[in-house]
């Protein structure tokens, strides 16, 4: 049944290629997938969802999709919500509707497939399926330096995927299977030797790291998001980028825990690079789209912190840190929704004022109060205001860093990193509030005097995302319960 979630966007893509009306078909597929996805996520452990089709007998490869645990369910949920919002927002340039909606559908199908795949081959393959249309969209429909931005993201992510592939092939060679649950079972009885663990963990950290824009492999992200059409940056920053973090939690943590632990200190240094260095870079941005791009790189640092806390707690009997995984998943969800909404609204600001330069904007709240309210809300979410999804995630991240903290032993590396990382919240507040002030408050300027507010059609995607932010923010157990189910 989960195959449907992948097939619906693919079928819609083919229908559009064959001449079906692009926007209507895509949106219909988006709604259908949302309904199916929500149903699947909240009943993920029911038998009906799993599917496994053999595609090759030797070596055994299966097109198998199943939600192994709540993490997959939440990521699929995130994908279907953001997909619908992305399909509803943005405006296709004249004559490019096929490409515009078709690419979004492919990205969505790839992301959902990657999050639900339980076969290593398809896990990797679906992600790549989503990357290619991302590159094409930026290259063809991007703004500004589109060619350069698109070529940069192509090369970075291409290289990242190949490094990742090396790690995955190594794992498959040791465990002798491509089936992820079987791999996990295999290492329970035959732990991988320390040297191989270290090598594999390094490849996975760098490979997944490039895909998630881990410092210092992040420089592709901001220009690409700034240049990409709105749905592409929403889908990539909101959903597809989470694939790397999901992969670390799904593959690296259970299969090579000691290897991850061995690289703990470098990882902590790099993630602080994300939070503090890129945070300062973000403050310095003069354009809203570049600022959002950088901020999305910065926030990845917190999720890495949760993963680091989890890796640090590995002992012979298992992981003692119980908060790391929920924290990472919750923050992935919150961040995915909020960054998608921010990119969607930024696109709306650009369409109604014609600019995203912070200095050219001002007083937009007067002519577009609805836009101002929505942007304010999601801006607060991204800073970490309580009541919105990101807050729940960030608090859990900080708590998870201090779980098992023993004052008599002094501060460990994870705790020190956490204390430094908390300053990131201040940085976020500075750039987000400043951007809000520059765009929406103060006297109106030329660009904003007659700009239109959100129309009903614009409100729907924003509302879908806002509802998700509020629901999870006010009642995080909605998702946390899924994680505790087996």
């Amino acid at each position, binding site marked *: 049944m989960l195959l449907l979630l992948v097939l619906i966007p693919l079928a819609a893509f083919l229908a559009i290629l064959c001449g079906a009306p692009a926007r209507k078909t895509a949106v219909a597929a988006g709604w259908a997938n949302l309904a199916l996805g929500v149903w699947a996520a909240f009943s993920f452990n029911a038998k009906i969802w799993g599917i496994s089709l*053999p*595609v*090759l*007998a*030797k*070596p*055994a*490869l299966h*097109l198998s999709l199943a939600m192994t645990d709540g993490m997959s369910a939440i990521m699929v949920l995130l994908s279907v919500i953001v997909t619908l919002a992305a399909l509803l927002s943005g405006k296709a340039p004249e004559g490019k509707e096929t490409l515009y909606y078709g690419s979004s559908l492919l990205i969505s199908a790839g992301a959902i497939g990657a999050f639900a795949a339980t076969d290593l*081959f398809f896990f*990797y*393959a*679906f992600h*790549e*399926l989503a990357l*290619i249309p991302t*590159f*094409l969209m930026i*290259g*063809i429909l991007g703004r500004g330096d*589109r*060619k350069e931005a*698109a*070529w940069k993201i*192509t*090369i970075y992510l*291409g*290289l990242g995927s*190949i*490094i990742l*592939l*090396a790690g995955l*092939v*190594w794992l*498959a*060679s040791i465990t*002798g299977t491509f089936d992820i649950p079987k791999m996990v079972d295999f290492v329970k009885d035959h732990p991988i030797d320390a040297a191989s663990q270290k090598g594999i963990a390094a490849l996975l950290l760098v490979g997944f790291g490039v895909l998630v824009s881990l410092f210092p492999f992040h420089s592709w992200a901001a220009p690409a998001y700034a240049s990409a059409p709105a749905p592409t940056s929403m889908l990539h920053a909101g959903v597809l980028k989470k694939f790397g973090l999901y992969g670390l939690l799904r593959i690296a943590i259970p299969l090579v825990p000691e290897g991850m632990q061995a690289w703990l200190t470098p990882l902590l240094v790099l993630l602080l690079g994300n939070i503090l260095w890129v945070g300062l870079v973000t403050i310095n941005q003069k354009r809203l789209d570049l600022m959002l791009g950088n901020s999305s790189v910065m926030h990845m640092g917190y999720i890495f912190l949760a993963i680091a806390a989890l890796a640090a707690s590995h002992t012979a009997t298992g992981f003692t840190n119980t908060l790391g995984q929920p924290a990472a998943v919750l923050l992935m969800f919150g961040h995915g929704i909020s960054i998608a909404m921010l990119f969607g609204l930024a696109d709306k600001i650009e369409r109604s004022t014609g600019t995203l330069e912070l200095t050219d904007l001002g007083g937009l709240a007067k002519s577009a109060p609805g836009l101002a309210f929505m942007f304010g809300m999601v801006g607060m979410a991204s800073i970490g205001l309580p009541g919105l999804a990101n807050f729940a995630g960030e608090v859990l991240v900080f708590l998870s860093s201090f779980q098992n903290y023993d004052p008599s032993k002094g501060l460990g590396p994870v705790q020190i990193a956490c204390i430094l990382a908390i300053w990131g919240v201040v940085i976020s507040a500075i750039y987000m509030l400043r951007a809000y002030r520059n765009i929406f408050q103060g006297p109106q300027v030329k660009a904003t005097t007659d700009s239109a507010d959100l129309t009903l059609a614009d409100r729907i995607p924003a509302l879908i995302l806002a509802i998700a932010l509020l629901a999870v923010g006010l009642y995080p157990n909605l998702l946390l319960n899924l994680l505790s189910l087996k």
Partner: protein
Amino acid sequence: MPAYYLEALTVALGIVLLMLEAFVSSASKKFIGISAAAGLALILIFSFFATAPDAKLELSRFYQYDGLARFYKGFALVCTILVVLMSVDFRSILSRFTDEPGTEKGTGEYYALPVFACAGMMWMASAKDLAGAFVALELVTITFYILVSYLRRNVGSLEAGVKYLILGALSTGFLVYGIAWIYGSTGTMNLAALAERLMTPRSPLDSTVVVEAWAQLAPVAQPSLLFGIALILIALGFKIGAVPMQVWIPDVYQGAPTPTTAFLSVGSKAAGFILLIRFITPFMQPGSPVAQHVALMLAIMAGATLLFGNLAAIGQTNFKRLLAYSSIAHAGFLVLALAAWKDKTPTDLSSAETVSFYLATYLLMTLASFFILAQVRIQDGSEEIDAFNGLGKRNPTLALGLTVIMAALAGVPLTAGFLGKLFVFKLAVDAKLWWAVILGFVGAAAGFYYYFKIIRAIWWEAPKAEAKPLVLPEITRYCVVGLTVAVIVLGVWPEPVRMLLQ
């Protein structure tokens, strides 16, 4: 029907085609091309009913028929059919450079010669004896001498022909010399007997005398045997396009008529690989005293080929030349699979199966690219990457197809190209050939760069001002669509290829 009838039928078909060319006067040679393709298709159908020859026949000392043989015979046939079809749509260029420009007079042989080459390739797939293999290989090579320089009034084609001739003759020398050394040190040219002699070495002078321990022979026989093996690997390196015999590839590929280039890069390479597999199988068998040495030679060859092909491809601006370097790079991956030798197991692909699988996917991707390249050459008069600029605007469907094909060549998953690479990497990691694995991944990364250069030109660059929409002629269109769909289907569901290999 005994399998060797297939070769006989193919040669007979070639002769009939030559007669047609001579006696049926017609302004257009399209008819000969279509007949060649149809005849080969018929033989392809026959090949499914072929059986191994009677073991009592003298011929069965030279000829074997097993799963691999059947696979590679089918491979040669499919490849030749597509190449002949490509030639049919390439007539306008062919007729421009022959004796009477503008007419198709004197182009008929261009459709008959590939059929003879095909017969040679089919025989190579069944080779069991180095002498027989040599004859089959020469049939292929000599046919190619003519095909490469077929555009006799085009300097590039003639230059390519001369280069191919000189290096081809050199490699023939290596081959014969290598066979002589192997015969001298083991006393046999038969591959099956060779396998047995390696395990229980006999005196090279008198094969009835069993030499008890290899060590007794070692001072003389092992180095001489290894020398012979090295010579033959170099000679086969010419066919498959691997270092150190790769130097001819870029120039010859660029100069030769496009269908011939496609034939060289797929058919000839695959035939070289099946011969290489046949040749090294006895030396790589478990317990063989030279297995490690041969694996090392192959690994060095693979590493150098990967490095050369991929790095040299990065800077290319001519699409045909890029495909030439890419063909060297793919040869590197294929040799790597052989260096990481693995015998048949129930759960994993063996090296021979991996190579066959890779080649099957390689056929689809490469022939599709050459089909498109041939049309771009005809309609735009250029083979530069620039000529593909803005293809997304000139023919969106073709652009989408070419994107899929380039992504497949780069090894993007869910296309057939990824699986081949994945299985090669898996073999190499299983064999713990770490340095070769690193070179392989560097190569794959470089490949990602240079194939995406084409995708970039197709979609991101604006077409030239005077560019017209690119329209594919009928045969090319059906072939490209079929090959592209196959690339995607096999990328998701590779089982059919494996079933053909059984």
